[in-house]
């Protein structure tokens, strides 16, 4: 969450709670909201590493709030973030290792593992498609996030299918 917070601060100074609201508005209700504690912790770390600076502002009836702004180093880190491409998503390696090692352990049947994993993915897929048709139809960014998750999951399901086809064949 470090770099998204920097990116939100590129527009201008803001305090922690504002940043939380900005994220919520951008990504919609579908996105699991980071709690405010997480945001303050991350802001603290960013400040410690010199990427942002906070300024205490006095409030009459409440505790002081801290308004953060990007430093030159923060600006640079953000530019570097936009310069680089992102890593490819990874194969679900934990499941893959379970599957690959199953025959040697004698603890699980490969096809049973695949069926169980498929049930799990299908339920998640169903929940995602419900989200997609629910109340955030007007939020394009949220829609794209959900669609991305669904397409990844579909690829995982297709891959499970390939595993099953292959492993059901006699060697």
């Amino acid at each position, binding site marked *: *969450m470090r770099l998204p917070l920097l990116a939100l601060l590129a527009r201008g100074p803001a305090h922690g709670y504002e940043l939380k609201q900005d994220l919520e508005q951008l990504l919609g209700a579908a996105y699991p909201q980071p709690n405010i504690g997480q945001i303050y912790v991350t802001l603290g770390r960013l400040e410690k590493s010199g990427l942002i600076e906070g300024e205490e502002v006095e409030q009459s009836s409440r505790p002081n709030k801290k308004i953060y702004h990007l430093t030159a180093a923060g600006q640079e880190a953000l530019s570097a973030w936009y310069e680089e491409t992102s890593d490819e998503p990874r194969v679900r390696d934990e499941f893959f290792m379970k599957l690959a090692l199953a025959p040697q352990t004698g603890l699980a049947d490969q096809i049973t593992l695949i069926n169980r994993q498929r049930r*799990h993915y299908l339920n998640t897929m169903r929940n*995602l498609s419900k989200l997609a048709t629910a109340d955030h139809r007007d939020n394009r960014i949220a829609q794209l996030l959900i669609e991305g998750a669904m397409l990844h*999951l579909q690829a995982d399901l297709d891959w499970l299918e390939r595993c099953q086809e292959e492993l059901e064949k006699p060697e």
Partner: protein
Amino acid sequence: MSEAPTAVLRAEGLVKTHHGEGAPAHAVRGVDLCVRRGEFVAVTGPSGAGKSTLLHLLGGLQRPDSGSIWLDGERTDAYSEARWAVERRRRIGIVFQFFNLVSNLSVADNVELPALLAGVSARRARAERAELLAELGLAGKERSLPGELSGGEQQRVALARALVNRPPLLLADEPAGSLDSKGTREVMRLLSRFHQRGQTILLVTHDARLASAADRVISFFDGRIADDVELGGAASPGAGVPAVLELRD
């Protein structure tokens, strides 16, 4: 009588082997299946697993080598081709991947035809057609020919045609197979909507997104049912969703 609701569709021991050139292809190898009223069942699996053959058997488009099918508790073994054709107008609606609309008939005629063939009055056929087309967002397209419509629109016409006689069972064979992502979402939304109103649906698809609209998913491999699962049940872990959407730290 207070017995359990009759299955809309039941199959036992279905077997079908295709004898083409080369080795015989065992498309369906002993399938037992029961679809209850109001269920939305998806059959998924890789291409060539035999799932389309299964749907064809269930709709009487092909005959099994052995095994039996019951429609509403009635055994169909002795049905003639003509009888199946009648059932496909009355009790079973079917949509296909490539729509199979009559290309030189207007949208309105395509939808009304099965109603007229089923002996419905012209007036009622028109009324049913108008209601369905409006519902499917096709009002104003009545006079178009299928070729003038997009794939997504043609599939909606096919859906209207399949449902015009209000069949208890809808069979859908890769209904989004020739549509883009947007068309797929549209088909998904419409199938869900009809299902919510009580339509029983059996859907064959290789598309997991489409399958997830169903409340029961059957995984079909190599002519057999490999798994059969109710989605969204009490035991289903929904925890996957936040995890797949969450940004990494």
